[in-house]
C-alpha cells in the first residue's frame, strides 16, 4: 500500500512541477504584444486582440475565403456595425476554435459567422490535441520563439497595442478572371464533413450558445473551392445542428458577381470588387436578421471613422471603376 501511495504521490508531484514549469514557460514564450517584432503570428487575425474591449459586434471566422470576401470596413461604412475577420489561410476548425476562444477574452460580439470553406480543410487528431494544449499552455504554440526571445520577454506583461486597419480583411485589387463553366452545377452528391470537424463545429456552436451569441454559417463565392456536394454537406450538418446557413454561391447573380472582374486568382478568392458586393449583401442580411446597432455617430468608435488610407484609396478606385 505504501508503495502505491508513494508512487501516486511521486507521479502527482512530478506532474504538478511540470505543469508549473510549462505555465512559467508559457508566460515567457507568449508574445508580449500582437506585433510582428514581438513574435506574434497571423498578425491580421490577431489584430482583434488590440481592439478596444467589447467593441466588436460581429466576429467572422474561417479560412482565406473569409479573409478575402468580407470587408469589415465596408460593413462599417454602409451599416455602422463593427466586425472583425479573425481568419487565416488554410485554417482548420481547431484553429478557428482557438481564435474564437481568444477573441472572446476581450470581446463580446453578438453574432459569430463561420465561413464554411473551413469545414473542408484537412484536420488531424494530432493537430487538434496540440491546438487544445495551446489554449491552456501557449508554450506549445509559441515554442519556436526561443529563437527570438529578448530580455523584455522575461520582464514585461502581455499588452496588445496593435490593430489592423482592415480589421482582418486582405485587400487586393488584382484581377484574374475565373472559368465558371462547371461552377455550382446542381448535384445530389454530398461531401461529408469529417467527424473531427463536425465535433469542433458543435463546440463552436455550444460556445456561442453558452454566451447567448448568434451563430451563422456563410459560404462566400468561390469557383475553385465551392461546389454543390460541399453545399449539400453543409446543408446536412446545418440541419443536424439546427444552424442557419447562407450560401452566397447560389445567388451570385443577385450579388452581381462577375467572374471576369471580381476575383484575384481565377476564382479561388474574391478581390476588393467581389468582396464589396459580398460584404454589402451580407451586411444587409445581418442587419435584418440580428439586432446590430449603428455606431457611426458614437464617439466611442472614433477610431473606426479613421478608415485606412489604403481602404479609402481602394474604395475610391472601386467607386470609379464599378459604381454599383
Amino acid at each position, binding site marked *: 500500500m505504501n508503495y502505491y501511495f508513494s508512487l501516486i504521490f511521486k507521479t502527482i508531484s*512530478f506532474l504538478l*512541477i511540470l505543469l508549473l514549469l*510549462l505555465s512559467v514557460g508559457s508566460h515567457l514564450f507568449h508574445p508580449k504584444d500582437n506585433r510582428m517584432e514581438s513574435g506574434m503570428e497571423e498578425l491580421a487575425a490577431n489584430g482583434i486582440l488590440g481592439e478596444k474591449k467589447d467593441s466588436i459586434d460581429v466576429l467572422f471566422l474561417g479560412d482565406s475565403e473569409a479573409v478575402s470576401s468580407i470587408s469589415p470596413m465596408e460593413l462599417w461604412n454602409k451599416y455602422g456595425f463593427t466586425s472583425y475577420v479573425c481568419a487565416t489561410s488554410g485554417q482548420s476548425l481547431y484553429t478557428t476554435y482557438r481564435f474564437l476562444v481568444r477573441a472572446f477574452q476581450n470581446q463580446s460580439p453578438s453574432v459569430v459567422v463561420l465561413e464554411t470553406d473551413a469545414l473542408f480543410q484537412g484536420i*488531424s*487528431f494530432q*493537430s487538434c490535441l*496540440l491546438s487544445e494544449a495551446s489554449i491552456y499552455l501557449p508554450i506549445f504554440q509559441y*515554442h519556436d520563439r526561443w529563437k527570438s526571445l529578448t530580455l523584455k520577454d522575461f520582464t514585461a506583461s502581455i499588452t496588445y497595442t496593435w490593430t489592423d486597419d482592415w480589421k482582418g480583411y486582405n485587400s487586393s485589387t488584382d484581377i484574374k478572371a475565373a472559368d465558371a463553366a462547371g461552377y455550382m452545377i446542381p448535384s445530389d452528391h454530398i461531401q461529408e464533413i469529417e467527424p473531427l470537424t463536425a465535433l469542433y463545429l458543435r463546440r463552436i456552436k455550444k460556445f456561442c450558445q453558452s454566451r447567448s451569441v448568434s451563430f451563422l454559417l456563410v459560404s462566400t463565392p468561390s469557383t475553385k473551392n465551392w461546389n454543390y456536394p460541399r453545399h449539400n454537406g453543409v446543408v446536412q450538418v446545418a440541419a443536424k445542428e439546427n444552424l442557419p446557413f447562407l450560401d452566397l454561391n447560389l445567388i451570385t447573380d443577385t450579388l452581381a458577381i462577375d467572374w471576369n472582374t471580381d476575383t484575384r486568382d481565377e476564382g479561388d478568392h474574391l478581390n476588393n470588387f467581389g468582396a464589396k458586393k459580398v460584404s454589402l449583401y451580407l451586411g444587409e442580411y445581418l442587419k435584418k436578421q440580428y439586432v446590430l446597432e449603428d455606431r457611426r455617430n458614437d464617439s466611442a468608435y472614433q477610431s473606426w471613422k479613421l478608415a485606412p488610407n489604403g481602404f479609402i484609396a481602394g474604395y475610391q478606385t472601386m467607386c470609379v471603376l464599378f459604381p454599383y
Partner: protein
Amino acid sequence: MSYCTSPYLFLFLPAALLLYHIAPQRIRPILLLVINYCFFWIVSGSLLTYLLFSTLSVYGIGLCLSSVQKKQELILKVCNKEEKHHRKMIYKKQQRMILFLGILLHAGILLVLKYGAFFCFNLNVFLNFFHAPIDIPVPSFLLPVGISFYTLQAISYLADIYRKKISADTNLLRFALYMSFFPQIMEGPICRYTETSSQLWNCKRITYQNLTFGIQRILFGMLKKVVIADRLNIVIKTVFDDYSQYNGSIIALAAMFYTCQLYMEFSGTMDVVIGSGELFGIKLPENFRQPFFSKSISEFWTRWHITLGSWFRDYIFYPLSMAKFMKHPTALIRKYLGNNYGIIFSASIALFCVWFCNGLWHGAEWKYVFFGLYHFVLIFLGNLIKPLSLRITEKIHSPLSSIAMTIFTTIRTTLLVCIGELFFRASSLTDGLLMFKKIITDASFSPLFDGSLLGLGMDRNDFGITAISLMIVLSVSLLKERHLSVRTILADQRLPVRWAVYYALILYIILFGAYGDGYIPVDPIYADF
C-alpha cells in the same frame, strides 16, 4: 496514429497502461490482445482481417508441422533401421511441403499486396518494348500497416518449428499476442517467437522501474525524432523535391542530412517502441547499435536494423549458402581458385539474394532494388579485398596508425552509407542517378559557406540546435559503445537530480521540437515499408 505522435503517447498508451494495470492478472493476456487489435484497427481499419487471417493460418500451419514432427518421432521409435531412413525422408518431405505452402501463402499475400502493382507495371513496360498488344491491368491494393514486419515474424515462426528450434504453440491467444503486440506491429523490431511470446503471455505487473526506464527511453526517442529528424526534414525536402536547382555540394549535404534523419527517425521511433514495451515489462530486441561507429559496410548492417538483418541471415543467407545445389560449384571453385574464393562464391550468391530481397522489402520500386544491390556490391568487394586489407593493416600496425585507420574506415563507411541513402530517398532511380551525377560533376564548396545553406529552410538557430542535439545523441552513443548505460547512471542519482534531468529533457523536446505552426508533419518513414 504513429508512435511519435501525441494521440499515441498521451491517449492510447496511457489508456492501455491503465487498463492493463487495473486488470486482474488472469485476464491481462486477453486484454492486451484486445488492445493490440484496437491499435491495429485504429491504424488500418478493416485491414485488420489480414492480420487475423495471418494469425489463424500460421497458427494452424504451425500445429500441422508439429503434428507431423510428433508422428515422425513416434513412428521412428518403432521402426527398424532400414525403414527408419525411408520414413524419415517421407516425413521430412511432408514437413517441407507444409512449410513451403505456409511461406508461399504468407509471402504470397505480401507479394500480391505490396508488389502486385510494381510487377504488372514493369511487365507492361516489358511487353510494350516488344510491341506486344497486351496491357495487363495494374492492381491497386490497400496495404495493412506493418504487413512487411508481421509477415517476416510469421515466416520465422514456421521456419523455427520446421528446424525444431521451437515447438508449435498450442495456445492461440499466446500466439496471437506474439503476432500483434501493438508497440512493434507498425515498424518492428521483427521479433522471434522465443524473444517475446512468453513475456507477452506472462503479463508481468507494471513496476516503478519499468515505468521510469520506459519513459526515459521514450523521451530520448522523441528528442531524436522531433528535435533532429523533423527539423532536418525541412532542408531534405527542399533539396530532394527540386534537386536540379542545387549545386552538387548542397545535394551531398542533403544526402548526409537524410542519412542522419533516417537514423534519428527510425532509431528514435525504436526507442519509443522499446520504451513502450518496457512500460509493460516486455523486453523487445534492439534494432540499432551505434551504426555510425562501423568500420565496414558489413559491420554497419550488423548494427543497423539488426532484426531485419538477422532475419535475412537466418532465413535466406544460411539456407541458401548451405543448400545442396551450392555444394558442387563451391567445391569446384575451392579446388581451382583456393579455399577463400570457394567460400566467397557461395556467400556471394546467398548475399545477392539477401540484398535483392532487402532492397525490395523496403518498397516496390527500382530505386530500392538498386539500394539493395549497391550494398551487395560493397559487401562483395569488401569480402574480396579483405585478405589484402588485413595484410596492410598488420604491416602498418602502430597505435597511431590504428587510430587513423579507425577514423578513416569509419568516415569511409559513413560516406558510402550516405550515397546509398541518396538513392533511397530520391523520388526515383533516375533522379537518384542524376543527383549523384551532380555531386560528381557540379561540386563546388562555395554554396556551403556563402550563405546559400541558410536559404534551404533552416536558419542559424536551427543548425545550432540540431548540432547540440546531435552532440547529446553522440555522447549517449559513445557511452553505450563503451557498455555504459546512461539510464543506470541516472538511476543511481538522487531524486532531485533525476527529476531535473527529466524536466530538462521534456522542456528541451517541447521548446526545440520541430512541430506545430510552420512545420510540416513528418510521417514515419519505416511505417511505409
